[in-house]
């Protein structure tokens, strides 16, 4: 059981120090049916960093996020947010699901979707006030979508739908941002816009964790990486953990073409 973590910069959270990590996972096993999607996984995510969760299809990347958020129920394991059980700390977490997870013909305008990010404040009956609308609009402006506020969501392109989902998460004003393949099927300009927002979130001291499948951009976009293929393969800074050795361990023979690890970016 060797756990290699970032230690060179002196700020890294060590695996034993659970309360210092914004999100720590211990012994997580999730199974759909009789095959585990994730088996006995430990992870210690670093505060104020951008971490990519990387692994082949079906490796359990999304399942990790969904377990943290309480969308799927683990068979076993512990999930701690700032040292306390995740279920009680869920208000600290914002989520950007995969775009394909909703029906975009749903009767909602862009602004309605962003306002869903304020649901905790709006509660059951409170009226949507000017201040709520202003905040929602500010989030839309941050992703360059303020002119689309009154548009029906089905009339947006894929990249714009992804921006709306990000704006909804921004409205939550959370400490931890979990994103499920935020760059899947979006245009280059949107990818750049999203990465800008994520980096600004990190620079504000928030923790950003994204499931990511494009190996060629890992080094350019992220500080830390968590490699998984049902079990944990490696975690640490990109320089430490994103090695061709670890990638071979994660992907086996199915390693997609990519620049040699450590050289990109």
């Amino acid at each position, binding site marked *: 059981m060797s756990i290699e973590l970032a230690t060179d910069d002196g700020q890294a959270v060590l695996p034993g120090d659970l309360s210092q990590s914004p999100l720590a996972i211990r012994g997580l096993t999730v199974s759909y049916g009789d095959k585990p999607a994730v088996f006995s996984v430990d992870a210690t995510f670093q505060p104020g960093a951008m971490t990519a969760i990387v692994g082949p299809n079906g490796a359990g990347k999304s399942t990790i996020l*969904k377990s943290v*958020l*309480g*969308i799927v129920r683990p068979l076993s394991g512990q999930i701690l947010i700032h040292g306390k059980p995740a279920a009680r700390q*869920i*208000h600290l*977490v914002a*989520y950007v*699901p995969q775009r394909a*997870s*909703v*029906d975009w013909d*749903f*009767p*909602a*305008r862009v602004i*309605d*979707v962003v306002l*869903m990010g304020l*649901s*905790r404040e*709006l*509660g*059951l*009956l409170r009226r949507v006030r000017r201040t709520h609308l202003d905040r929602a609009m500010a989030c839309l402006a941050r992703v*360059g*979508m303020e*002119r*689309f506020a009154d548009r*029906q969501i089905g009339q947006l*392109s*894929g*990249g*714009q739908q992804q*921006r709306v989902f990000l704006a*909804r998460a921004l409205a*939550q004003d959370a400490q931890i941002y*979990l994103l499920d393949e935020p760059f899947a*099927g979006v*245009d*280059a*300009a*949107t990818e*750049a*816009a999203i990465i800008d927002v994520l980096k600004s979130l990190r620079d504000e001291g928030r923790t950003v964790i994204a499931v990511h499948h494009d190996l060629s951009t890992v080094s350019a976009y992220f500080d830390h990486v968590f490699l998984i293929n049902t079990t944990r393969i490696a975690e640490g800074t990109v320089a430490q953990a994103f090695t061709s050795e670890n990638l071979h361990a994660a992907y086996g023979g199915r390693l997609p073409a990519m620049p040699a690890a450590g050289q990109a970016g």
Partner: protein
Amino acid sequence: MFGLGYNAILVTVGAGLLGASAGLTGTFLFLRKRALVSDAIAHATLPGVALAFVVMVALGGDGRALPGLMAGSALSAWLGLLAVGWLSRHTRLAEDAAIGAILSVFFGAGIVGLTVIQSLNTGRQAGLETFLLGSTAGMLFTDAMIIAIGGALAVVAVILLRRPMLAVCFDPGYAAATGRDVHRIDLAMMGLVMAVTVVGLKIVGLVLIVALLIIPPVAARFWSDEAGRVVLISGLIGAFSGATGAILSASAPNLPTGPLIVLAAFAVFAASFVIAPKRGLLASVLWHLRYRRRVHLRQGLLALAQGHPIYEAFTMRLLRRAGLARADGVATDQGRAAAANALLDERRWQILRSDPKFETTAALYDGLRPIDTVLTPDQITQIDRGLGPRGAA
């Protein structure tokens, strides 16, 4: 006997409230894409009706007392709902198959029960079959009161739960991630549907209550792209259908009430289908005519910008009428500016469509849409880089 008496007015109000609650509740079911569950719930009420009748008679009471029948129907509907949930979660059956199985088994059991009761010859069982298609004839004052109160309570519940229910309808994963208990919200939604069904048994009947839950939201969807408004409009359509059906039924007591209410709802649906702005049939015909004009205008402008001749008389007429070209085919100042704009837009689109990264946006190309209505400013800046130095002019 004609004209609405005090009782008939109360029945109408009750039917209106019931319709409103069905329209409101049904919208969430429709948006959750679980409309058929209501059919299972409705059919699963029948064994409960039969059983409640037997129990009440056995206890020496009136077998047709509405509160008792409602309690019995609620009980068996809840069992049916649980059975559908259990089957789709613990077997390989999909929910639609589970619904089909439960619906037919419960309904069959209910029909057997009713037939047995009819052959029992207790003398007073006549009337239970009105629960199939609904009836307002001979309704007691207290019955109408119960229905009105039940409908009103359901309306209040929808107002209280509208936000969590909409959140779950749109994106259950995100709803769970923001701390909502999706399972319980779903149960509350189904509970509301069950309450509406049970309350509506007497007036609409169990065979057609599903129509009152589904037709109003489908009709309402034609009128708005905003969920809150769809809910509200659906409630109004439901209320109108319920009240109209009850009034018609009061003047023609031989007709079952349920079908009249459903036909009233259908009339609203048909009207919405034809005349609704944007999504209606008429609007789409008008849209097509306008679309044709815009295509001609755009082609004309592009021809002007590139100095091509315009052959089509219709195109020329449109350009002249818009003050963009003179009778001899030469562009006016305004026409030249518009033409240059159209050309820039078209070149931007060409770049966008040749870039695989914009594939999803490229699908929106229709030769008309100004590119700034589909792209954000930073996306346009990126496109313009491909235009080269001349493009910016």
